[in-house]
């Protein structure tokens, strides 16, 4: 008969790894034996005739052969490792043996060393997200727009959850488990996803327009209507950089579909950066009128 497999997509946070170990043990008692453990999904094979007890370890192993040998000596079988440094181990269950026979860290120092490695990793990552949140906060203060707000919000949540995880992991006591942790993990991954999506999609939907015009001499007044068109796909703050150099005052305008002026600037020497303009969804254009030699450069994002 062909072997029967099943997959589990349940995720566990690192600081809740003991819950994962307990669930693996329970599944083994129910006849589902772990074939491959993973961060995002695990694979099990049906075998009701044996029972295993599992353990997890987190480290970069220098000498895999030695690692496997040391575990084998005490009846442990190495199952597999995940890409991010977690290792799954199993040992045949013998009801006659005491619970301690299924521990792999038997003193406080070595357990601390293991959890400390993850704590360090999460702290560094949490601080990094924190720094990015601060940078994003400055950008939001100086030039707020929706993608930046979303980025800031996700960076704060990500940083907070990582540092919270590091804190919990550092205080982990043997046998401690956390309930209802899936929600936290879901929020964390949702933030990663939303942050990336806002970066890719919302940023990409902005006009990102860069254009210039110039004339050395003008014999009759120039009125350029809608020499460039651009679409605004969602209402937000948009930022205009404008440079005007002209002998006689030049008028620059942004007009909407109904030819209503939403922004205007007149001058002979203008150099402004990051002018905040609130724009609604729709199509817009640039308009310019001048009756002398000029140079004009503008960009909107």
């Amino acid at each position, binding site marked *: 008969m062909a072997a029967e497999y099943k997959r589990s997509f349940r995720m566990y946070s690192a600081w809740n790894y003991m819950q994962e170990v307990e669930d693996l043990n329970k599944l083994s008692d129910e006849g589902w034996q772990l074939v491959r453990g993973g961060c995002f999904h695990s694979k099990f094979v049906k075998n009701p005739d044996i029972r295993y007890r599992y*353990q997890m*370890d987190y*480290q970069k192993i*220098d*000498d895999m052969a*030695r*690692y496997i*040998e*040391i*575990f084998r*000596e*005490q009846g*442990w079988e190495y199952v597999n490792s995940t890409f991010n440094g977690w290792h799954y*181990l199993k040992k045949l269950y013998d009801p006659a043996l005491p619970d*301690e026979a299924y*521990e*792999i*860290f*038997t*003193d406080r*120092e*070595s357990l601390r*060393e*293991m959890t400390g490695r993850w704590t360090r990793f999460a702290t560094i990552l949490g601080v990094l997200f924190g720094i990015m949140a601060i940078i994003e906060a400055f950008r939001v203060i100086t030039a707020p727009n929706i993608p930046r707000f979303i980025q800031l919000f996700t960076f704060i949540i990500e940083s907070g959850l990582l540092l919270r995880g590091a804190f919990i992991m550092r205080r982990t006591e043997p046998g401690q488990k956390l309930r209802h942790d899936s929600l936290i993990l879901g929020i964390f991954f949702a933030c990663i996803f939303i942050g990336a999506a806002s970066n890719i999609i919302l940023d990409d939907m902005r006009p990102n327009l860069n254009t210039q015009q110039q004339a050395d001499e003008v014999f009759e007044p120039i009125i350029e209507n809608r020499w460039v068109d651009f679409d605004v796909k969602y209402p937000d703050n948009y930022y205009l950089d404008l440079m005007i150099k002209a002998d006689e005052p030049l008028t620059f305008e942004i007009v909407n579909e109904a030819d209503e002026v939403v922004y205007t600037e007149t001058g002979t020497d203008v150099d402004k950066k990051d002018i905040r303009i609130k724009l609604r969804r729709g199509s817009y254009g640039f308009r310019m009128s001048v009756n002398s030699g000029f140079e004009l450069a503008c960009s909107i994002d």
Partner: protein
Amino acid sequence: MKKSEPMSESYYYILLCLAKGANHGYGIMQMTEKLSRGDVTIGSGTMYGATSNMMKKGWIKEIMSTEGAERRRLYQLTDTGRKALRAEINRLRRMLENAEEV
């Protein structure tokens, strides 16, 4: 001279088990349980971490056993390791003497 840090129980027993000659991981584990009359056990994770760290410190080194058909890793105490063990024993002895004085 820098005061040496107290050793963890596992480090101490591993070094103690190697004092009379090289041994493999399982041998160290069994000897530790026998010596401590079951009080101290060394799990595999603890054993791997402790031996890795002590090899980095140069307290023990890995050799391959030549007897028998199966090649096995043996751990051997180095001179530095012996010194560290002796220092720890002296520290423990002083602490015991202090307790007796009180």
